[in-house]
């Protein structure tokens, strides 16, 4: 087995291929996105997997970027909040967060939006309780939870219940 202390990493981020050399294996995907690719939309809250502010999609599944060694994401596809909109057209979840006032300070919002976009794909929007449970990995210090649930429900295209 070939062990190295510096690595070459190929990664597709928001549809764009990157080749990053001389990568220390200690660097997390979160730090790589923020500090080498300057995609600072993904937030660093706790850096311990607890808050969800760093949520991104890895091969289409939502994950905590702070819990992933960047080097282990070799060859994978990452979507961050910067890659969610289709040009100038906001993703329905982004629009719903605006329409329903789903934030105050906005720090948790990129993570909330990425989580909500995935949750709708997963189909966990059967009831408000289900939305709350499946959004529980995203903490909001401003406690915008009621509006976040409304936004997710609206984005999922369900009538208010």
């Amino acid at each position, binding site marked *: *087995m*070939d*062990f*190295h*202390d510096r*690595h070459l990493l190929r990664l597709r981020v928001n549809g764009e291929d990157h080749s990053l050399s001389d990568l*220390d*294996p*200690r660097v*997390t995907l979160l730090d790589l996105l923020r500090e080498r690719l300057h995609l600072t939309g993904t937030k660093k809250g706790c*850096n*311990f*997997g607890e808050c*969800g502010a760093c*949520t991104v999609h*890895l091969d289409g*599944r*939502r*994950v*905590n970027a*702070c*819990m*992933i*060694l960047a*080097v*282990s994401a*070799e060859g994978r596809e990452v979507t961050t909040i910067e890659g969610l909109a289709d040009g100038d057209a906001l993703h329905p979840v982004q629009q719903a967060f605006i329409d329903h006032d789903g934030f105050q300070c906005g720090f948790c919002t990129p993570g909330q939006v990425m*989580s909500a976009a*995935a*949750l709708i794909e*997963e189909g*966990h929007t059967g009831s408000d309780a289900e939305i*709350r*449970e*499946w959004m*529980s*990995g*995203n903490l909001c210090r401003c406690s915008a939870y009621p509006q976040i649930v409304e936004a997710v429900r609206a984005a999922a295209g369900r009538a208010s219940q």
Partner: protein
Amino acid sequence: MTPFVYARADSLGETIAAGAAPDSAFLAGGTELLNWLRLGIAGPARIIDISRLDGLDQIEALPGGGLRIGALTHLNDVAQHELVMRDYPVLSQAILNAASPQLRNLATIGGNLLQKTRCAYFRAEEQLPCNKRRLGSGCSALHGINDNHAIFGWTEDCIATQPSDPAVALAALDAVIVTAHRSGGRRIPAAEFHLLPDTRPEADNVLQQGELITAIELPAPAPRSAYLKVRERESYEYAIVSAAAVLEMDGRTIRRAGLALGSVALRPWRLSAAEERLAGADVGDREALSTAIEQSFAEARPLLQNAYKIELAKTAALRAIERAARMPS
């Protein structure tokens, strides 16, 4: 984080060969290991990324009944697998009550069993007396904050609990943990996988250096089974206590019961005495159920701040049995 070298494993053979070298650690989902590296709980020189090993993330029915779950299967994929939901609801529920949706997309079922205690002294950023961090340094919790520590099986060397939810379900199900090692693999009963602090307080489980969990095997289907988790908030929190119940029934009569409690000891705590008394009991007879459960609490020993967990655990066990009985068979 102290520096380490990293390699991705492509085959089982090279994985167990490389893993046998001291100072090596496997990386699966990384949701525990990364935090250990950050806190200095672990500082391996070599990290072996096992996350892309072929064939270890499958769930398949076993010939004689039962199910084999590859160790690298992500928690969300185990919990939402058709056969797990139908035949082993206790495991599906335990997993869906663990961690968060995002973490469950990373975390693997094998790695989950290897998580360490959440004792705050153990996880502190500055080094505090803790025999699990540094053997011989003492236990800060013994005369400190111990309201959520053990009520069973503790010693003065360590009073911590094992926080895994899935492990509790696996213990009640009589699951088997299958391993591979350079010197041969083994099959370890789930209830005997974690270690109490009585012999080697610094050790968490029976695995040797370089021993890889390859699968978890479940015995015959257990549709009448349920998991109950009591915590300080409704979701995304570790348990204060949890209970897993697995029942075989004849009408309303319990033929056989498997019962385990979580977050009460350094291993999932099987209530064997209660299980014996439950055989033949009417599941509608609360008094009989409570009397049976009581049998297993003779050995409970509260700490200064956690006597409340004894009552909580008894009630959780009772309610888990009742919930299991209501599951469709």
